[in-house]
């Protein structure tokens, strides 16, 4: 191989590395993605140069077709369909790896009748297996997210046993395919098994777990690429495949943690259903949770923030950490104010006493009537242990015991984050529908400790 091409591959690898690194930070993610695509371009061009136009036309046609389809899908889809698209692309990638490996195998074993050595053979089998599994698994995930297949986990008795048997068959088929290369039955059996396993392992998983599965399959497709690299003895494939494989695994783990599930649980057939944790007292309200890190990012990207303190702030004694939050926001030139509801807390002026204790300047505290018009132009409202005073039922539901009480129109803001410990009710003992609104995210936990962590995150950003 030409040394320049090798160097191009090296450069591409480095670009991938830097790209991945940057994609872990909000501010640099986009440029990271661009760098990595640049790396890809370099790698592809280098390869095209390397093959010295032997079959340039076909290559060109294929690339054009692929690009057209890719671009079409990428631009057509709605933002809400992103996760399923990722699954689909991932599936294509997996199938691609399978095809490359199979092509290599076929070329050598059937067409050239050359012998493939054990190491290369093993790599080929791995590549086929992982690629196939990734393909069908991703397609199932795609269909589930798409709603074409029920999002409910589809289970049947003994599925773990069946999967285990299939896996054993995969190994057998691989060994035979490497040993008896002249007979193509084995390799096709391998392909079929891989495809089947992909379907069977993903089918039983509930729709809610799909993101984790996709992330894992993504990691697999990286490994498939890596295996292909071993087949073709190509470094850039190995580096980028390994990179994707490893970072994918870590990402999967992070996502599992965020969902409170263990990776092992997902990796081994555990792959089971999520236990539905929100029951009982939340009645019908479906809420979206948010983590501390994401909340921190939301703060970071807001340009105006209004804090609505309530009795929960007093209970948690969170006034001091809120002052820190204010300092963090002011550092970022975020417009930061407090909306004080006249009956927030349990005594007149309750919030005033506490916020004064925390040394928050009087002119940051805005009365309800004055600030109510501003909510709709506000990026982010942070409700800290308030409940009744932001309950839209007071405006909208004549049956509610608090109907007629003036409230803070927090719900009108672009995004609302609510810090409270649970779905517990407020003084008036009524359900708050705001928590189920589309623009509302719940940050569960004691206000003092969660906001403390939030501030910690912001400091690091």
């Amino acid at each position, binding site marked *: 191989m030409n040394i320049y091409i090798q160097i191009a591959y090296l450069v591409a690898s480095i670009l*991938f590395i830097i*790209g*991945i690194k940057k*994609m*872990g930070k*909000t501010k640099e*993610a986009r440029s990271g*993605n*661009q760098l*990595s*695509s640049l790396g*890809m371009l370099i790698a*592809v061009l280098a*390869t095209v140069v*390397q*093959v010295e136009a032997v*079959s340039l036309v*076909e290559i060109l046609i*294929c*690339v054009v077709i*692929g690009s057209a*389809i*890719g*671009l079409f*899908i*990428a631009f057509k*889809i709605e933002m809400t369909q*992103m996760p399923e698209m*990722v699954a689909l*692309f991932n599936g*294509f*990638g997996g199938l*691609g790896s*399978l*095809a490359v490996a199979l*092509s290599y195998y076929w070329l050598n074993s059937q067409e050239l009748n050359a012998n493939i050595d054990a190491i290369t053979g093993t790599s080929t089998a791995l590549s086929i297996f992982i690629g196939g599994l990734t393909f069908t698994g991703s397609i199932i995930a795609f269909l589930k997210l798409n709603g074409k297949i029920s999002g409910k986990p589809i289970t049947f008795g003994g599925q773990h046993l069946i999967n285990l048997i299939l896996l054993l068959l995969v190994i057998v088929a691989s060994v035979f395919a490497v040993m008896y290369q002249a007979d193509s039955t084995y390799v096709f059996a391998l392909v079929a098994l891989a495809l089947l396993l992909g379907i069977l392992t993903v089918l039983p998983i509930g729709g809610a777990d799909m*993101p984790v599965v996709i*992330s894992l399959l*993504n990691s697999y*497709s*990286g490994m498939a*690429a890596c295996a*292909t690299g*071993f087949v073709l*003895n*190509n*470094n850039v*494939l190995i580096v*980028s495949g*390994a*990179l*994707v*494989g*490893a*970072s*994918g695994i*870590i990402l999967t783990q992070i*996502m599992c943690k965020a969902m409170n599930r263990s990776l092992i649980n997902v990796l081994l057939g555990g792959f089971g259903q999520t236990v539905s944790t929100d029951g009982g007292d939340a009645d019908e309200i479906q809420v979206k949770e948010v*983590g501390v890190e994401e909340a921190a990012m939301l703060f970071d990207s807001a*340009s105006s923030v209004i804090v609505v303190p309530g009795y929960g702030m007093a209970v948690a004694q969170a006034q001091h950490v809120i002052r820190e939050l204010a300092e963090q926001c002011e550092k970022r030139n975020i417009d930061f104010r407090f909306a004080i509801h006249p009956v927030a807390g349990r005594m007149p002026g309750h919030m005033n006493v506490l916020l004064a204790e925390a040394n928050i300047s009087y002119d940051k505290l805005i009365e309800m009537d004055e600030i109510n018009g501003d909510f709709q132009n506000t990026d982010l409202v942070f409700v800290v242990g308030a409940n009744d005073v932001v309950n839209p039922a007071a405006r909208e539901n004549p049956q509610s015991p608090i109907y007629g009480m003036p409230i803070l129109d927090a719900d009108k803001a672009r995004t609302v984050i609510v810090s409270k410990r649970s779905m517990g009710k407020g003084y008036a003992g009524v359900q708050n529908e705001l928590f189920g609104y589309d623009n509302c995210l719940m940050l569960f936990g004691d206000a003092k400790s969660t906001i403390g962590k939030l501030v910690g995150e912001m400091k690091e950003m």
Partner: protein
Amino acid sequence: MTTESLIILFYILVLASYLGFELITKVPPTLHTPLMSGSNAISGITMVGAILACNELGYSTFSKWLGMLALVLATINVVGGYTVTDRMLKMFKKKK
């Protein structure tokens, strides 16, 4: 392949994997989907393999067709993946 070169490739594998681990130790949840999507696009590097695979004369052989199929698929993965990721990331710009 000789064990010699296998070992060297193994070095590369191990180092790259470790690096992958190190790089993605603390990603905020908002970035989970774009990161997934972006690294997915990278895994489209099989495109390189695909090009090599269809570098045969004539369309007649199975392996050539497979190679071309692989190339189309990998290209979709690469092009679609990067574009979608970019679209997602554009939304993260600070609104002012």
